[in-house]
C-alpha cells in the first residue's frame, strides 16, 4: 500500500505563476521530504521537514507539514520553465533506512 502519495497526477501553470503540490501519508513519520526529478535524471532533494516542524523554506520553495492531518504541501512561487519536473514527497519512519516515495506529481511550466 502507498505510504505517501501526492494528490494530483499532473499540473500545468504559466511561467511566473505560483503552484502548490499536496501530499498525504498514512503512517507516523520522523520526517517528510520533497524531491524533484527532471526527465532522465535522478531525483534531487528540495526540502526536508521534520515531524516537529510546521514550515520550511528554500528560496522560492516553501513546504508545510501538518502531522494531525498527515499531509504536506510544497509551494513554488514565481515558477520558471526549469521547474518543469516530477515532484515527489517521501516519508521516513525507520531511521533513514527506508525512504518511501509517493506516486509523484508532474508539473509543466509553460513559457
Amino acid at each position, binding site marked *: 500500500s502507498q505510504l505517501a502519495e501526492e494528490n494530483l497526477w499532473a499540473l500545468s501553470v504559466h511561467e511566473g505563476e505560483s503552484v502548490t503540490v499536496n501530499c498525504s501519508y498514512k503512517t507516523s513519520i*520522523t*520526517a517528510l*521530504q520533497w524531491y524533484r526529478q527532471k526527465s*532522465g*535524471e*535522478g*531525483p*534531487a*532533494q528540495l526540502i*526536508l521537514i521534520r515531524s516537529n516542524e510546521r514550515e520550511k523554506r528554500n528560496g522560492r520553495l516553501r513546504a508545510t507539514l501538518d502531522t494531525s492531518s498527515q499531509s504536506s504541501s510544497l509551494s513554488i512561487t514565481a515558477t520558471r520553465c526549469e521547474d518543469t519536473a516530477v515532484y*515527489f514527497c*517521501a516519508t*521516513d519512519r525507520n*531511521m*533513514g*533506512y*527506508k*525512504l*518511501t*516515495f*509517493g*506516486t*509523484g506529481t508532474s508539473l509543466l511550466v509553460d513559457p
Partner: protein
Amino acid sequence: AQTIHQWPVAEIKAVGSPLSLGCTIKGKSSPNLYWYWQATGGTLQQLFYSITVGQVESVVQLNLSASRPKDDQFILSTEKLLLSHSGFYLCACARDRGASDYTFGSGTRLLVI
C-alpha cells in the same frame, strides 16, 4: 559533498541474460547506500540498502541481488533478466548515518527485450 557515479548509463539486454549495474560513491566514508527502481512514469521503489561492507538488506523481492564489495561500491545484479526488470535504476547515498536525505546518482536506464 558526495558524488555518485553509476554505470552503465544505459543497457539493452535480452530476456534471460545476466545483468550487473554498478555504483561508486566519492567524498563520503562508510556511507549508507540504497538501490531504487523506477518504472517509466512511476514512483521510486526501494530494492536494497547497505550500511556497511559485506552487508545488504533486501526490501522487495524482484529476482535481483545486491552486494557491497567495498566501502564505496554497491552492485546490483541478476543471472536471468525478466521483461519486468526494465526501468530506471538509481543508486542513492544518505547524507549521514541515520539521516534520510539522499543524494541520487544519475541512474541506469535498462531495457529488457
